[in-house]
C-alpha cells in the first residue's frame, strides 16, 4: 500500500512566522504535490514536483515556496505566514508518465495562523 506521511498534523503559527510542512513518501513516485483545501474552494494546487531538485508552480503559488531535496521528501514553506493561509494542506504522490493518474494522499496538515 502506497504511503504518504505528513508532519506536523496540526500547527498553530503567528502572523509573520515561518512554517514548514513536510511530506515523505515511500512509494518511489516521481511526482509530488501540495494542495490546500478550503470550504467553498475544494482542493487547489500550490506547488508540485517531477523529481528530486525540481519544483513547479501550481495554480496558487503566491506566498509559498517548495523544496524537493530527495525522491522521498517534499516540503512546503511559508516564509511569512498570514491568516489567509489558515487551511488544511494535503500532500500527494503519483507515478506520472503514462500512468492513469493514481494519486496517493497524506492525512493532511491543519494550519492555523493567528
Amino acid at each position: 500500500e502506497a504511503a504518504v506521511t505528513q508532519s506536523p498534523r496540526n500547527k498553530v503559527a503567528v502572523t509573520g512566522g515561518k512554517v514548514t510542512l513536510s511530506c515523505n513518501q515511500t512509494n518511489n513516485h516521481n511526482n509530488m504535490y501540495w494542495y490546500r483545501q478550503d470550504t467553498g474552494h475544494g482542493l487547489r494546487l500550490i506547488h508540485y514536483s517531477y523529481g528530486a531538485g525540481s519544483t513547479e508552480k501550481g495554480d496558487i503559488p503566491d506566498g509559498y515556496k517548495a523544496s524537493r531535496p530527495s525522491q522521498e521528501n517534499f516540503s512546503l514553506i511559508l516564509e511569512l505566514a498570514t491568516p489567509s493561509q489558515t487551511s488544511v494542506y494535503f500532500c500527494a504522490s503519483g507515478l506520472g508518465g503514462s500512468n492513469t493518474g493514481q494519486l496517493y494522499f497524506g492525512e493532511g496538515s491543519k494550519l492555523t495562523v493567528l
Partner: protein
Amino acid sequence: GQQVQQSPASLVLQEGENAELQCNFSSTATRLQWFYQRPGGSLVSLLSNPSGTKHTGRLTSTTVTKERRGSLHISSSQITDSGTYLCAMGPTGGNNKLTFGQGTVLSVIP
C-alpha cells in the same frame, strides 16, 4: 483556467438507495477521476475514467468527454459510504496535475 463543477452539493440517502453524482468541466479533459474523502480525513482514489463507462464494485463512472460531463453512480448505498466525493479533471501528459471540484457531501442514514 480549468473549472470543475459538482452537483448536488449535498445528498442524504437512506441505506440501500442509489446515488448519482454529477461533474461538469470546462475543457475537453482527457482524464476524469473520482476521489472519496472520509470526514476529516484524507482522500482515496476511486476511479480514473477518461471516457465511457467503468465499474468497480458498487461504483459506476460514466464520462462523456465531448459533452464535458461525468457521473458517479453508487448502488445500494451503505452507511460507510458517507463522506465527500470529489471529481477531478486533468490534462494530457504525465504530470497528474488535477483540478478538483468542490465535492458532494453524501450522508447515508439508517
